[in-house]
Every structure is written in C-alpha cells, then in structure tokens.
C-alpha cells in the first residue's frame, strides 16, 4: 500500500492541483487585482516542470500531455490541444536542461520561470494563430503573461523544497543498495 502510493503520487498531486487551480485560487486572488491584471494559476504546469527538472524529461512530456489534455477537455470551448501541447513541450524543454550536481535553487527557478513564459507564449501564439482572440501583444504581455508568470513562480518558490524532496526521494534508495 505504501509503495503503491509512492509510485503513483504524481498523478494524485497533479489531479489535486488541477482541481485546486480551477476553484479555490480564483477566490483567493483579491478582486482589486482582478480588475487590472489577470493572474492565471498554472500549478499543474509548475509541477510538470519540476518533474522535468528532477525526474526524466520523457515522464514530464507524458504527464504534461495527459494533464494538459485533461484541462482541455474540462474547459473545452473552441479548440482542444493548446494546453496539452503547451504543457508537454514546456515540460520536455525543462527536462532537456537537466544538470548534475550542484543543483542550485536559483538555476531551477530560472528554468521554471522560462518554462512558464514559454507556455504563455505558446498559449497566446496558438490562440492568435487560430484567430480565437484578438488581444494585442503588448497588452497580453503586461496584463496576462507577466503577472501569471510571477504568480506561478511564487507558488514554485513556496513549494520548491517539498516537491523536490518528493520527486528526488525516489532515486536515492536505488543508488544505496549495491552489493
């Protein structure tokens, strides 16, 4: 039972974050912010980026695709596939930048921030490409993308240590047993 949980916890955590970001965070953001900027919580994306950084990039790609697809299905209104493409690609790219020790906090958070920015660009780009929105670039950058990136980066900063321990803790027992 314990090993069952520890093997499949990324699914549960991602599912929990998905439900959380669609419901509670919307009410937590003070409405004085909401009139000026739009902050979009992408906690599932942050976790997928962490999977890419601390696990393998292929698992980040798979998790990103699956949970992006889940979000697309859930909030389907005009097109399917934006989130799955965006999350999968960002997770994969984050996984490509994996380094060995020393694994600094600053470096990982920088990659997380860049991954979030990449996702926002993909999101905006595909929406503009298929003419689903006509918000112009500067407005979207200052009102949607940068606040969202900062907000999600704050979330990443807060949960960096527990998530890293959770994701990396699987590797250390494997290297310990050698006889």
């Amino acid at each position, binding site marked *: 039972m314990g090993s069952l949980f520890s093997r499949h916890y990324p699914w549960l955590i991602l599912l929990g974050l998905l439900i959380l970001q669609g*419901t509670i*965070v919307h*009410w937590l953001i003070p409405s004085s912010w909401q009139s000026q900027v739009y902050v*979009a919580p992408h906690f599932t994306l942050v976790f997928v980026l962490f999977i890419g950084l601390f696990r393998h990039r292929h698992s980040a790609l798979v998790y990103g695709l699956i949970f992006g697809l889940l979000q697309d299905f859930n*909030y*389907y209104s*005009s097109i399917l596939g934006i989130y799955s493409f965006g999350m999968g690609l960002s997770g994969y790219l984050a996984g490509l930048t994996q380094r060995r020790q020393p694994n600094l906090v600053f470096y990982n958070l920088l990659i997380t921030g860049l991954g979030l920015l990449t996702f926002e660009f993909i999101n905006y780009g595909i929406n503009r490409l298929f003419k689903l929105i006509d918000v112009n670039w500067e407005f979207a950058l200052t*009102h949607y993308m940068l606040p969202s990136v900062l907000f999600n980066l704050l979330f990443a900063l807060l949960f960096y240590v527990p998530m890293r321990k959770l994701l990396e803790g699987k590797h250390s027992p494997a290297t310990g047993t050698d006889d």
Partner: protein
Amino acid sequence: MVGLICFFILMGLTLGARAPMTWPEKFIKDSVSWTQGLFYKPAASIAGFFEDIRQLRVIYEENKTLKLTLTQYARDTQRLNELEAQNKRLMEALGFTERQRQANVYKYRIAEVVTIDPDPYNSTVTINLGDADGIKENMAVMTVDGLVGRVSKVFGFHSNVQLLTEINDTDTNSKAIAVTVKGNESEPFGMIESYDSKTGELVMNKVEQADSLKVGDTIITSGLGQVFPKGIEVGTIASIGPGEFGITYKVMVKPKATFSHIREVFVVEVPEVK
C-alpha cells in the same frame, strides 16, 4: 451585696434606647475592634485561599466546558452568517424570477458555478446543469444583473458557458448578439460582435442610425438573431463613435453583469427552443 445592687443599676440604666455612646465605651470598642481587625482580614484571606484551591478544580472544569460552548457558538455564528448570505442571494434570485415571470414567458433555471477556467484567453465557466436537466447548446446564461454568456457545450451533468468576454468576430465558435435599446425596441439595431479587454466594454457594430441612441441607454437583446432570446439586459451605452468605413456607427457598451466571482447563474429556457 453592693455589687449586686451596682449590677442592677447598670442594667436598669442601659436597658432602654440610648443616645450616642459615652467616650469610654467608644474608646474600648475602637481599640478592641481595631486589634480584631488586624487578625480578621488575614484570617479571611487565608481561609479564602484554601477555599480557592478547593475551587480551582471546579473552576478549571467550568472553564473547559465554557470554552467548548464558546467555540460551538462561534461555529454556529459563522454558519448562521453563511446561511444568511446565501438566503439573501437566493431571495434576490427568487424575486428576480418572479419579476421576470410577469415580463416574459421564459423559464429561468438556476445553476451553480462549479469551476472557472484559469486561462485568460478562454474564460469558460462550468455550471452544474447538463444534458440530463434539459440544457441545450446556445441557451443564454445570465445573472441577476444581466447577460453573462451562452451555453457553449453540454455534457451529461454539467455545461460549459462561454462568457461575454470572449465574444470575437473572428472565432467561428462565438456568436454575436443582436441588440437594441430598451424602451425603443423597434428602431435601433446593432450587433455585439467583440469585447475590448483593455476597456472592459463590448463593441456593438453595424449601428445604422445613431440618433435614437444616447449615452446611458440600456442595451437589451433583440431576439432577431434567433440565438439569444429577446429582452435580456446586456449593458449600458458608454460611448458612441464612428464605425468601420465611416458608414455605420460603433457603440461601446459597458456590461451590467460582473464576470468575476460568479456563484449562481440563470439559464434562460425559451419555450419554443425545446
């Protein structure tokens, strides 16, 4: 024998009611009382101290039960506040449906919002009425303040509502709203085709005659497009300006409903759509 007589005299003299005490009596009484007071107060406090220790256990138990009762009251008060707020909202909604019942023959189904898409480019709201409750695509969705959106996709027990903030003239999935002015429904005509995120206003195009419009008029749906039923309030005119090619006018409409923090909405069911 003499002593006995003295005693009788003393008793006889002091028997009745007497005026103020004589000074020896006062002196003796005061000195004795003062000395007694020296002993009485500490004795009382010491006895009180032991009494307090005995009572400490009782007071402790009493404090515990009082604290429990207090937290229970706090919880009850919080629940009461929550129920009161909900009651107020639902009464408002009920009053609203009653008023509308006299005005139109639409059926207003109340639905609760379940989740909101966090994406800024795709503000889909999910409500908890679906195919099983008879919701069909393209039904108009409104709050007490005004039109909020349109049902875009219907699932088994939930539906996705596309908000007015996403109306777009280039997207094939968004539908424009044919609108007119309240109070003068036959003359003015316009189409709300897009939403300007910068100013937060809806853009109403294809207005031919702007002389019957003035700033502050209420814009309602006209029902001419066969998509949105007529008579639903959309917003108020914020400004009137020249439109495309200078032929028609472009009117900016400020929406009446707020699009953030929505909890309950109404889905408008028109009888003939069934």
